[in-house]
């Protein structure tokens, strides 16, 4: 039971810091969402609300649909040609599946950080400037400012400020991941989606990214998928537990980890499966 005990300890800290939850503004509202890959029913009747300036963690065993869900939020999932979707998701009260809704615009409001750091094979500077440039910002001075601000925001400015013109692949994995976060900050999103952002990183880099997430929460709403339950416990306010494409439990993080409603949630967080 070593593991469970450890989790408990994390919990206590969490509860202390956070106190009671307040009512917040809703960013994303998911209603009866179903998603199929071909005939494979990957998401089943999902109903979730995501709040502003909170960290929402999504946990669940491999293949339960975490990545699928998070990629549905910025409609990246539609890159898979066989995908079919029913139900609805509203972002800031607008349905993102409306015909007239422009995905490209949605994605400027909703940044995404991936499991494996995926910088472009360009210079550090160009990586950060990619988003602004894509959206028509050409002015060199403004770009310089954005680059610096974003890198500072991702807590990597000091490490890279002297090598902005070097290829991003010269950075370490942890630095690359923070670069990717910076790249995402450069277009000043409203929401940041993170799909297991630390699973490819070493413990020290992981810690840095976790701290960063806590920092970013002040300005952004964050949805983070993680395999690491301690991480979910440490950094999130709200946790959704997915299993086989369904949301089993969705609640305050301290509630989920200390006193889950569902037996399956308990089994999962105590390591009985997954």
């Amino acid at each position, binding site marked *: 039971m070593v593991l469970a005990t450890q989790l408990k300890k994390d919990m206590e800290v969490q509860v202390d810091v956070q106190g009671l939850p307040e009512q917040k503004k809703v960013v994303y509202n998911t209603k009866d969402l179903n998603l199929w890959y071909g005939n494979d029913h990957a998401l089943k009747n999902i109903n979730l609300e995501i709040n502003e300036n909170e960290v929402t963690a999504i946990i669940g065993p491999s293949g339960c649909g975490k990545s699928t869900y998070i990629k549905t939020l910025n409609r990246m999932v539609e*890159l898979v040609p066989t995908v079919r979707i029913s139900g609805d998701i509203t972002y800031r009260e607008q349905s993102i599946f409306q015909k007239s809704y422009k995905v490209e615009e949605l*994605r400027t409001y909703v940044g995404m950080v*991936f499991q494996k750091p995926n910088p472009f094979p360009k210079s550090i500077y160009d990586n950060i400037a990619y988003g602004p440039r*894509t959206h028509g910002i050409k002015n060199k001075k403004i770009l310089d400012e954005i680059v610096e601000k974003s890198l500072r925001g991702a807590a990597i400015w000091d490490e890279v400020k002297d090598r902005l013109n070097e290829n991003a692949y010269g950075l370490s994995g942890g630095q690359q991941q923070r670069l*990717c976060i910076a790249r995402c900050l450069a277009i000043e999103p409203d929401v940041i989606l993170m799909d297991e952002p630390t699973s490819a990183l070493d413990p020290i880099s992981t810690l840095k990214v976790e701290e960063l997430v806590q920092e970013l929460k002040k300005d952004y709403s964050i949805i983070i998928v993680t395999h690491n339950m301690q991480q979910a416990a440490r950094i999130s306010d709200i946790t959704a537990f997915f299993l086989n494409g369904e949301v089993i439990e969705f609640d305050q993080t301290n509630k989920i980890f200390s006193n889950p409603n569902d037996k399956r949630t308990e089994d999962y967080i105590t390591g009985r499966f997954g």
Partner: protein
Amino acid sequence: MKYIDSAQVQKKMSSRLLFNQILKTLFFLSTIVGLVVLVVLFYRVISQSIGWIDLSFLTNKLSTMPERAGIMGAILGTVWLMIVVAPITLFLGVGTAIYLEEYAKKSKFQSFIQTNISNLAGVPSIVFGILGLTIFVRAAGLGNIILAGGLTMALLVLPIVVVSSQEAIRAVPSFLREASYAMGATKWQTIIKVVLPAALPGILTGTILALSRAIGETAPLVVIGIPALLIPFPGGIFDKFTVLPMQIYYWTVDAALVAEYANLAAATIVVLLFVLFAMNSIAIFIRNKFQQRY
């Protein structure tokens, strides 16, 4: 009951191992055949060309007199031909590759075009010559000028560029595309700003290899018709021309008339091979130097 007798196994083992060894040697020798031929070929060609390759051979005009003959005209012809072939194949080849890889995923039509391209790659070059003769030289009335030869060659090497560009584009990891889409970039922006730059080294490598194929091709040009004696240097894509392989062809055939022509042919071969090696080295250099490791 025992079926496998270990004494028997042991007895057979030596001969099996010996047989293995013998065939291994045979396999090795087979692999070496290529090397041997290569050495003999180079030795022959180089020794025959000694004394014939010098600056004046490279810079002189063509002549019926072996001592005065030079291949500048053929070199310029080759250069002009490539000036026609390179942009056309690059444009058509990369465009087709982008379409097939990025836009037309998995449709029937896509597989039709794909099959079509691989079949086109297998069509003998001389059939392309017939196509060029009929359509560019005669129907379009261009005559046997560089433009007509270049268009024919471009179609001939197009499949090579398409396939190698496709491979290069496919090798661009999908996470780069995802990163770009996630920034709100459109598909075309993603292709132009992320996919193509990342695929560029591969595309260039493939294109250089395709061009070196075009530089060495003879058959389509024989069909299109290259004059046996053309002395002036070509000055543009509407001029008549000869190229290095054609000069090798005529001199090889005419060596029966003037023995020294064989040496001129050998000397031209050396020049041609040198050009091809240089191009291949550039291709390898680009591949090793600029290929991004993710």
